[in-house]
């Protein structure tokens, strides 16, 4: 079974009296341990898709299955998930990495990484252990008690990645993760994401930069709220070749 299945997804916003059709019958299937980039010009529905996948928002119409769980369904028999249920899914299944890092400014790196575990209701001791080991994993073992403003951009994004990883999510959802970083740091972060993928994580990368998107094995291109192109990258083709052999 696919990890993620989007079937004929529509999302319509109302801004004042104007209806904006952000997603218009989008279909996509993503398997476990895939590394997918989502591309597209602005207004193509990237952000909306990202919000839907990340369970920050629910589609207006369509079926969305995530890790065997029905997040949204056209079937009127199935009840709609409420705010709290969605929060629980985000907590358990999704690891967010944002362009602007979105760390709590007054909390230490350690506390930032601890947050998803707090909301998962994990005990203090287990939380500390996990947050510690995850920060060590992203190479910030010596920066645990620093606050975000005491860290460089790259370090901040690594804290954010540690936070995304800490609760063992089904998907890591990275929205322009290098958008606020210089090219050298960007490269570092991308190497890091590549490593996470090799370690077995499923990664969805939203970006508008081609060289970043090329890190993935597959690129889904959006246009007008629909998938306009879905293709393997060089890396993806190579990987498949190796697997086929």
């Amino acid at each position, binding site marked *: 079974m696919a990890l993620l299945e989007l079937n004929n997804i529509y999302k319509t916003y109302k801004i004042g009296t104007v209806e904006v059709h952000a997603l218009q019958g989008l279909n996509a299937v993503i398997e476990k341990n895939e590394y997918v980039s989502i591309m597209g010009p602005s207004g193509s529905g990237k952000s909306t898709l990202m*919000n839907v996948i*990340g369970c*920050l*928002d629910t589609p207006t119409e369509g079926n969305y299955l995530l890790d065997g769980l029905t997040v949204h369904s056209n079937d009127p028999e199935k009840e709609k998930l409420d*705010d*709290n249920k969605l*929060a*629980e899914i*985000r*907590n*358990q299944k999704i690891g*967010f990495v*944002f362009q602007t890092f*979105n*760390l*709590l400014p*007054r909390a230490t790196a350690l506390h930032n990484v601890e*947050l*998803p575990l*707090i*909301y*998962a*209701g*994990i*005990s*203090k001791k287990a939380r500390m252990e996990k947050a510690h080991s995850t920060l060590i994993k992203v190479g910030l073992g010596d920066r645990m008690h620093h606050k975000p403003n005491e860290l460089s951009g790259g370090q901040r994004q690594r804290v954010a990645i540690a*936070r995304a990883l800490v609760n063992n999510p089904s998907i890591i959802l990275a929205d322009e993760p290098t958008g606020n970083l210089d090219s050298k740091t960007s490269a570092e972060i991308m190497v890091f994401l590549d490593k996470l993928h090799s370690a077995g994580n499923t990664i969805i990368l939203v970006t508008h930069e081609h060289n970043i998107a090329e890190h993935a094995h597959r690129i889904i291109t959006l246009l007008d709220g629909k998938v306009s192109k879905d293709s393997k990258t060089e890396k993806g083709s190579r990987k498949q070749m190796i697997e086929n052999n």
Partner: protein
Amino acid sequence: MGQLWESFIIAFKDVFANKTRSFLTMLGIIIGILSVSLMGTAISGINDTFENSMDMIGNDVLHLQKYPWFMKGGDWWDFRNRPEMKVEYVDKILQRSKNISFATPEMQNMRNVKYGDNSIQGVFIDAANWQLQHVNSLKFEDGRFFTKSEDRNASRVVVIGYGIKDNLFPNQNPIGEDIKIRGMKYKVIGVLKEQGKFLGLFSFDNMVIIPLKSAYSIFGRRRRMSITLKVREGVDIKTAKDEVTMIMRSLRGLKPSEKNNFEINQQEAFREQFSAIKMGISGAGFGITALALLVGGIGIMNIMFVSVKERTKEIGIRKALGAKQNVILFQFLSEAVIIAVIGGVIGLIITTSLVGLLNKFFVASLSIKLVIISLSVSIITGVLSGIVPARKAAKLDPIDAIRYE
């Protein structure tokens, strides 16, 4: 549960991260709690002291006098023309009454009292018979009351109040010493237990008691006298009052058509006056408290709205990471309650230091009950003023919130 605790900790840190702001927000609550606890302490202090004083007057004691304690209308001249009380009435009432167990005439006057070089100006001298100790249920720190024979023989013996002992005999046992009242030597035979103050009124602490017969040479015979009667145990005070009224009317030879030309006063008269004072104080206290808490509560609500607005992005991040609505709600509600409770505690601390000041006028102390009431009021104020902003925070849309700059 763990999550709520974490929310509480976060809220606690946030309160202290904005110390000045939190403190300013607390001011209304501080004043409100200060007012409620101070008024409560004052009222209970006044009440206790009043009850104490009432015990001194005795709730089973009737005061047979020329004038009423509190004149409600009536012509003062009518009262003034009434005949004076006489010592003879005492024995006659005791003979005829079934409901009176003890009775004493009382004469009071202010005189200077001296011991060696120490002297006190204007001490209340209470001259009575040996039954006064039973009428007023006197309790002794040391020594005894004068006996029937000392009374009959007009012995120069004196029982002194605790305050008198403190002033005249600071480091000395007064029993057996002679004090001088208007140049007359009196031997101290007893010291009364401390009775406490009620704005200096009705306390035996600053009185001395001497046998009535020995007082004539100091006061003269024509002093105004009253008669104090102890109602027999188990007898309804009203029954006793009616009986004494009948006895007095017959002693004075009043016709049925004539009005009483004497007054039987009792504690009740004080109670009526006192409850009016008490109502006044509690009314004012309640008003100030309610107003201060309302203003304080609005202050907290206002600052909580600011806090939610300021931390919109933080709320968005927390929700994205899986914080449920009730967790966010609890975090902001805790913040409001923490501000209110710290304000309440500060108010109580100030009250504690002011209670010392109250004690200059009467015995008062902050009771546990008042502390609990004050803290409960703080918590309720915090919840009421925090709930709307906290709900607003909990209901924020994570997408909008996380993008808020």
